[in-house]
């Protein structure tokens, strides 16, 4: 009874996006695109922002909004929106390209540390699927695991038992892998990152104004948020340097 309810809820949450409101937003989206085409970047920006403020997320929406900001000279905002778009579609070539150009316009050049090749491979594999897809795959493997485990537990013939035992181990490994890939993908999707918005900000060694300045960051740099303490964020750059910055000088992606 309970399980049926849960399954029902799941189905609704996956498939149900109010179709009647979508057409209204698509209209707005087209309006903004027209404004962009004729060079009215400010009005295009206003309409895109209006759509995104209703809680609608879309890689294309953020990408277009980022373009508007770039055209009006606000590189930090452009980077913020490209990064948001990239989260929704990590493989989108246009987003990656424009983000690269926006990043070339900012002051700080952060050289990312080249990750270990196994880490890189793992990341690529995990990000190839949506975390929810990994979730369903892992559920499938659990089902398979139960099935082959039945063979082991209930089988009368020694050969059946052997087959069931080996099959259980394989299925268990498959389940673990899909779960781990899903976790990586989910962490990547939920990772906390921020863009520096203050023209220049001193990165401190401690979350107080009096502590030592470690290095200086400028508008538009992407940082990883590690922790938060009152109005301070502990951040790390892609090159491994970390420190504290005031929260109001950043904007979370």
């Amino acid at each position: 009874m309970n399980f049926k309810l849960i399954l029902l809820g799941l189905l609704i949450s996956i498939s149900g996006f109010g179709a009647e409101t979508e057409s209204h937003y698509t209209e707005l989206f087209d309006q903004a695109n027209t404004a962009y085409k004729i060079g009215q970047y400010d009005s295009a920006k206003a309409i895109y922002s209006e759509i995104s403020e209703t809680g609608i997320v879309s890689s294309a929406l953020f990408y277009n909004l980022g373009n508007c900001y770039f055209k009006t000279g606000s590189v930090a905002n452009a980077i913020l929106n490209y990064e948001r778009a990239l989260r929704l579609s990590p493989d989108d070539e246009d987003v990656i390209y424009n983000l690269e150009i926006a990043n070339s316009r900012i002051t700080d050049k952060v050289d990312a540390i080249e990750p270990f090749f196994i880490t890189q491979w793992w990341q690529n594999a995990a990000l190839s699927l949506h975390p929810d897809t990994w979730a369903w795959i892992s559920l499938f493997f659990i089902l398979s695991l139960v099935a082959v485990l039945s063979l082991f537990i209930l089988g009368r013939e020694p050969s059946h038992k052997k087959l069931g035992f080996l099959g259980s181990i394989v299925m268990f490994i498959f389940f673990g892998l899909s779960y781990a890939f899903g976790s990586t993908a989910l962490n990547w999707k939920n990772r906390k990152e921020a863009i520096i918005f203050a023209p220049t900000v001193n990165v401190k060694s401690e979350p107080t104004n009096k502590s030592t300045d470690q290095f200086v960051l400028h508008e538009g740099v992407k940082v990883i948020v590690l922790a938060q303490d009152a109005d301070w964020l502990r951040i790390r750059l892609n090159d491994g340097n970390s420190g504290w910055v005031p929260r109001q000088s950043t904007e979370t992606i």
Partner: protein
Amino acid sequence: MLVSMTSIAQNFEAGVSKKQVAVGERFTLEYKTELAGANFTPPNMQNLQVLSGPNMSESSININGKRSRSFTVSYVLRALKEGEAKIGPATLSTKNETFNSEAITIKVAKQAQSNAQAQGENDLSTTMFIKLFVDDKNPYVGEQIVATYKIYMAEQLVNYSSNNPVFNGFYAQNIDLSNSNEVSKEFINNRQFTVATLKKVILTPQKSGTLEVDPLEMELRVRLQDKSRGRGFFGFPSYKEVNITVASNTEKINVKPLPSSGQPADFDGAVGNFTLSAKVDRTDLNANEAVNLTVMYSGNGNIELLSEPKFNFPADFEVYDPKVRKNISNNGSGSSGKKTFEYVIIPRFGGDFELEPVKLSYFDPSSGKYKTLESEPITLHVAKGANSADAAVYNPTSKEDVQILGKDIRFIKTENPDLARSESSFFKTQNYYLLSALPVGLGGAFWMIILLLRRKEQDQSLTSKRAGGVAKKHLVKATKLINDKNEAFYEAISKALFGYLSDKLSINLAELNRENIESELKAKNVSQVLIAQLTKALDECDMVRFAPGVVRGKEEMLAASKEIIEKLEDEL
């Protein structure tokens, strides 16, 4: 009373130009005071003739900006008689106080004295000398002291030459005396001296311990009255000139080290009394515009030696070396003035920047403590420059940058915007965990049911096996006796059956008989056929003693008994 006593020496002095005169010789008597508006009562004089006076004169001197006035009453006198001439005390009275000068006795010789010259030459060291004054003999290291050399002259000076003392262990700065050539008159032992300041030096001790201030030596050419030759041709006195060498005293200065307790970390040797200010010419500006920051030290002390302020400018500021300006004057109270540092700073990026306050730690010798000054913090509001590419100055574009800057971003996406509410993810939610637990739970329950069913099946086959076992156990004695005499074998069969029944029906072996066996078995729903078989077997065991022919053979009997027990086991 005591006050007025000590006041005599300071405020009312009397002196004569000569203490030994010949009869008829002229000399001057002077009274000197700094009190204005006092009443002067002339002294009583014996054996003296007043040729001129009382002559009043007033003079004023500026010393270190302090104006001091002095009043002089002078007489020109002539001795009348040989012997002693006495000048009684003169009186100076103000509203509140009365001062008396000392009485002066003058020896009057008969005409020219023959030994006067010798005496005068002998006394040259008391009439012509240099004195060294030091205003503080116990300074701290770095605390400025002022050394003053003064020449005291009671004779006429014709010419002089002097050396320049070397001040070992001191940083010496001469005070320019050209503007304030102080010549004054002082009375010592009622003798009038002309006093001139030769040299004034500001000395800054560079190390602790006992240091010496060197004496100033001078070659003097002095004109003396040549009394041995008496009056000259026209009755004028005759003179001779003498060369003498005089040297001032030496002063020992005991220089105290600066206290080590409470010494600030940034202390850099500044000793004195200072003020500090830091100013910018504007606080609101655009990025890449210059702003002037002026740090000014002022006060007195070793201001000349103050070093450049230590500044930690925000990292993105371009700062040029400061222009240093000094306006320091050396005078009798040491060095005082201003030292300014002018910085030109250019913020390269927008934002609000707080310039760290400038700090100056110094030692204040008057209180014997260290003090730290801190300027007011300065906040600069830097607006973003007019062109947003203000970073270009700071970060010259490389070849690669130019390449990328030449390209533009790609066009917007116009199709398939895939507008969707931000989805809540499914992985790792409660639902996910419930769904993953579902097959495990169902599978577990399924296995449990299957395994329970199988166990029941196994149990049944196991009970029948066990029943056979029970029969075997009871019949084991009979099995062993199968090759023995008939009676013992059948006896054993009989005992086995009775023993089994006794166990199974829970009836004592002694009370067990055919009747209660049959009724008990019937009550337990044992089939009639089995009861008949049992009865028959028991009968045969009884009959074997007297009718062995009707009884079944041993093997047959054993098998039959076994079967009976197994069947009973099943049915009971």
